[in-house]
């Protein structure tokens, strides 16, 4: 169909035949999620950019090993996330990931009162501060699953752990976060 964006398998097949324009389209399509995933792992925008860049180069070289019909996104994220972890390991230092909220963000289409907006913004800030204060393992799994909106397979790929471990780790991380929220509410 004319004007229809090519789907992943079509782009992959073309890239495997040496069509670099097709691969560039794949990079454009996934660069944001790849960069953000690397940012969650490294805590540094510069390192995340390097990791994403190098990850896409490695993925291109490994295209022949990509199984047609498989999901491209988790495959790419696994390579980029590995690159990000390697960078953290080789530098011997992980930057503290400090997630922030966009100023003036207001979810939904409704127009709540200024007081309600202020209270909701304050609640979100407090909750995010609690997420930032969690252990690295807990923070990573929550950021991947909820803030990056990765599915189970993608979270497993990004964290380099089995999918079953994602479920148990997420469950424990949520329990610890919930306990902190309740503790703050009762204080």
């Amino acid at each position, binding site marked *: 169909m004319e004007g229809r964006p090519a789907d992943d398998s079509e782009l992959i097949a073309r890239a495997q035949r040496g069509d670099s324009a097709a691969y560039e389209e794949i990079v454009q399509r996934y660069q944001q999620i790849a960069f953000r995933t690397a940012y969650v792992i490294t805590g540094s*925008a*510069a*390192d995340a950019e390097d990791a994403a860049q190098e990850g896409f180069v490695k993925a291109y070289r490994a295209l*022949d090993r990509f199984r047609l019909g498989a999901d491209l996104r988790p495959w790419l994220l696994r390579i980029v996330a590995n690159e990000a972890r390697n960078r953290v390991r080789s530098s011997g230092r992980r930057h503290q990931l*400090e997630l922030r909220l*966009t100023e003036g*963000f207001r979810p939904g289409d409704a127009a709540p009162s200024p007081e309600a907006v202020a209270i909701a913004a304050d609640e979100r800030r407090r909750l995010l501060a609690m997420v930032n204060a969690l252990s690295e393992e807990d923070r990573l799994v929550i950021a991947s699953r*909820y*803030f990056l909106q990765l599915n189970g397979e993608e979270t497993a790929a990004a964290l380099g752990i089995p999918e079953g471990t994602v479920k148990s780790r997420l469950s424990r991380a949520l329990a610890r976060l919930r306990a902190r*929220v309740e503790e703050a509410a009762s204080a």
Partner: protein
Amino acid sequence: MPDLEEQLTAMSVAIEWPPTPALRPVLSRPARREGWGLWRLQTRWALAAAAVLLIVATLLAYTPSRDAIAGWLNLHTTILRTPNQPTPSPLPSGPLGERLGLGSPTTLDGARSQVRWKIEVPSSLGRPDAVYVKLPPTGPSGGEVTLVYAQRPDIHAYGVTGVSILVTEARGKTNEIYFQKMLGQDATLEPTTVNGHAGYWIAGSPHQFVFTDADGNIYSDTLRLATNTLIFDNNGTIVRIEGDMTKSQALEIASSLS
């Protein structure tokens, strides 16, 4: 109160992520193989061809045999060897240093309008070929400005990026204890004096530099060229001069800052 998981999911659109850079990976991939048999056959032919070429090149390089070959082939001309001119590596399109993660490209005037402190420019290098500015949250508080220079006399430019010198400036204080730990074994630190200010000459291949920014936060930065670096405090601004240069070359650049 909404469920915790719902709250976290709703927050995903409110997270302030650093801007996604435009990635342009340099693509090179070996030609696709159609099975081992064909690959082995191709390899055998390639080895045979390489051997023949080597023999021919050796014979042609030796003047008497070159003349003899010309005689056998009844070529009454002289075989001349024209040296191949090396092809320069293609440089990436876009502003110089675009792939070094230095922030957003701008101009000198543009950078001056975005920070509240004085940006000094080394007159010995002329006008910078590119200027980048990195502001919080990705940059240190007060911002960071990098002047990028292409090839300069006696200073090697890196083939991949075409960059020879980076001059990076940010408000803050050096912290020897921190950045000495980050240097690694392949770099040495030598305290030095630059224009009357305390500084350090780092020789080798340092990769990370840590300093205290204007708000007192510890800020870690990547030394993009991973080569000799002069770092000094210039009236509250930390200046880094990176490049494949000697200490005296770096000091000369530093002394021309104004």
